């Protein structure tokens, strides 16, 4: 406590005796103004989006969330139900696929790979994150889509057709399954690179202790590495989920843009972000614009919750490790 006090009063007392330096004041004000842009932009985005969505919020209320419609009844009825369904299904599906793969990649890079392989593979995995979503979407339409309709889809439907989520045959390449695969590719590099850093940060003496007790490598991972990095893994997964929720371009290219709730993943659907992106060429009425922004409000709420949760977990973990 005395150290903190010293830090607070020491230089300040010196400065009071010294002359006033306008340069310091200018630097302080200018940099502080820049640093406030984060808060200001967050507030501004929230305010603007809420204001613009207000007409739709007033007209439809929370019923918007449970209405499945887009421009029905002569362009007067809008609702987000099917888009929320599509968003939840595709991003959770992607997370389900990406989690084991990402953890495995992170384990390979942190525990198994020899140095030179790590030096080659780690940047390659990160390069996967550098592929623009519009290019992934293009690949999704022209390569992945036909592959799903022609080979993968019929195979899965043939063997697992009794499972409701594979109950239809993919008739067109654009479907929720394609969106899930594309989102999986997008979040693998994010989750795996965060997890790799977490695993590398596990203290060697803990791992050595377990090894000395005769544990196999996998037992060390299960008994020491995973529990130690648990909170961080959770944060990484939430960040990945946030990314999947908000991806608009690649999803709108492959999902089929249908206002529908289908059990089978081989049917088309739509997500919040994708529906917004699909309307870029212009909305016909003020109500449609307001409804579109209402979708953005829902998306904003989703992503704010996901990001705040992830950041708070990260901060708590970092705080614990410092002590």
């Amino acid at each position, binding site marked *: 406590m005395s150290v903190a006090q010293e830090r607070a009063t020491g230089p300040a007392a010196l400065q009071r005796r010294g002359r006033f330096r306008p340069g*310091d004041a200018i630097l302080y004000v200018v940099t502080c103004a820049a640093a406030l842009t984060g808060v200001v*932009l967050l507030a*501004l985005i929230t305010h603007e989006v809420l204001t613009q969505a207000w007409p739709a919020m007033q007209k439809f209320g929370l019923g918007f969330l449970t209405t499945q419609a887009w421009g029905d009844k002569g362009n007067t009825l809008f609702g987000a139900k099917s888009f929320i369904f599509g968003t939840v299904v595709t991003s959770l599906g992607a997370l389900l696929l990406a989690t084991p793969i990402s953890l495995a990649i992170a384990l390979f890079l942190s525990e198994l790979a020899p140095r030179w392989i790590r030096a080659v593979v780690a940047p390659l995995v990160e390069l996967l994150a550098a592929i623009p979503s519009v290019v992934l979407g293009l690949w999704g339409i022209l390569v992945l889509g036909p592959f799903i309709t022609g080979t993968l889809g019929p195979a899965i439907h043939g063997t697992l057709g009794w499972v409701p989520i594979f109950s239809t045959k993919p008739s067109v390449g654009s479907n929720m399954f394609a969106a899930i695969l594309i989102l999986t590719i997008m979040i693998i590099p994010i989750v795996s690179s965060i997890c790799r850093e977490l695993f590398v940060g596990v203290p060697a003496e803990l791992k050595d202790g377990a090894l000395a007790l005769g544990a*196999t490598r996998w037992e060390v991972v299960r008994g020491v590495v995973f529990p130690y990095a648990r909170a961080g893994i959770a944060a990484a997964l939430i960040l990945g989920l946030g990314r999947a929720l908000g991806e608009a371009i690649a999803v709108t290219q492959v999902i089929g843009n249908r206002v529908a709730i289908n059990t089978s993943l081989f049917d088309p659907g739509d997500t919040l972000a994708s529906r917004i992106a699909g309307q870029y060429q212009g909305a016909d009425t003020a109500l449609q614009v307001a409804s579109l922004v209402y979708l*953005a409000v829902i998306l*904003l709420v989703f992503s704010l919750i996901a990001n705040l949760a992830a950041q708070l977990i990260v901060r708590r973990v970092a705080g614990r490790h410092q002590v």
Partner: protein
Amino acid sequence: MSANAPTADLFRSERMRRRRIVNRLVEGAATAAALLAVALLIIVVSSVVRQGWAAINVDFFTKTPAIYTGFGPRPASGISSAIIGTLIIIGIALLMALPVGVLTAIYLNELAPRKLASVLTLAFDVLNGIPAIVLGIFVFIFVVVGHGQAAWKASFALAILMVPMIARSTQEVLALVPSSMREASLALGAAKWRTTLSVVLPQAVGGIVTGATLATARAAGETAPLLFTSALYSDSVSYDPRQPIASIPMFIFTSAEQADPVLHEQAWGAAAVLIGIILIASLIARWFADRSVRRLKGER
């Protein structure tokens, strides 16, 4: 005899064998997963390069997109307007984001009280997680509605995306600058602002370049912020940021939606160009990062 038995048992026991098999299986799965990720990268990049190659020639870089009416030979077509447009949009975005990002990092690292710094950093982290499409909608509402689209408005949306990235990477290098350098400068009587700008900041230039390049590379590939801000462009070359301008991502996005296979080929070509730009930028960034970190660590 009995003294040696336990050792032999430990290594041959059924349980140990099972533990080893499980271990092997997991190790194999982890290796396979890493191979899968690399394979995915190779599959995507190779299909872009293979199919984009056919479209890439001199005309592709110098001509504007030509509309084919369906009769006669196809006119030579290219994406020059989109390449120039992307450079302009990204350039303006960098001009907006770089000063804000660097000044933010200076404040957070050098000047701010710790509590305030952590709150402001949280704000940037949350801002970083807002979907690009929401940023696009925000800029649309904020400056496009009633005024029309313009390239600088797209730059504004991209800049919001870039600021947190630039601030974060600048902060990371500023933290590496040894405090003895600051103390030495202050002890010589230099003012805080003088110390910050001419002693601390020059040390961090490498990190700033890295952050700026990575942010630019990421922004160059973003489509969502352009949809509502610079999408209604003409196909001719334009240098005026007050008008909507073509861009490579928008070209890929709109071409992919068409049924015309020639447009698909052009979209692949544009994707190859875009990935090329991003890869080069990433390599430059990595090189700068390695160099500056090595230099800062070496001086300690």
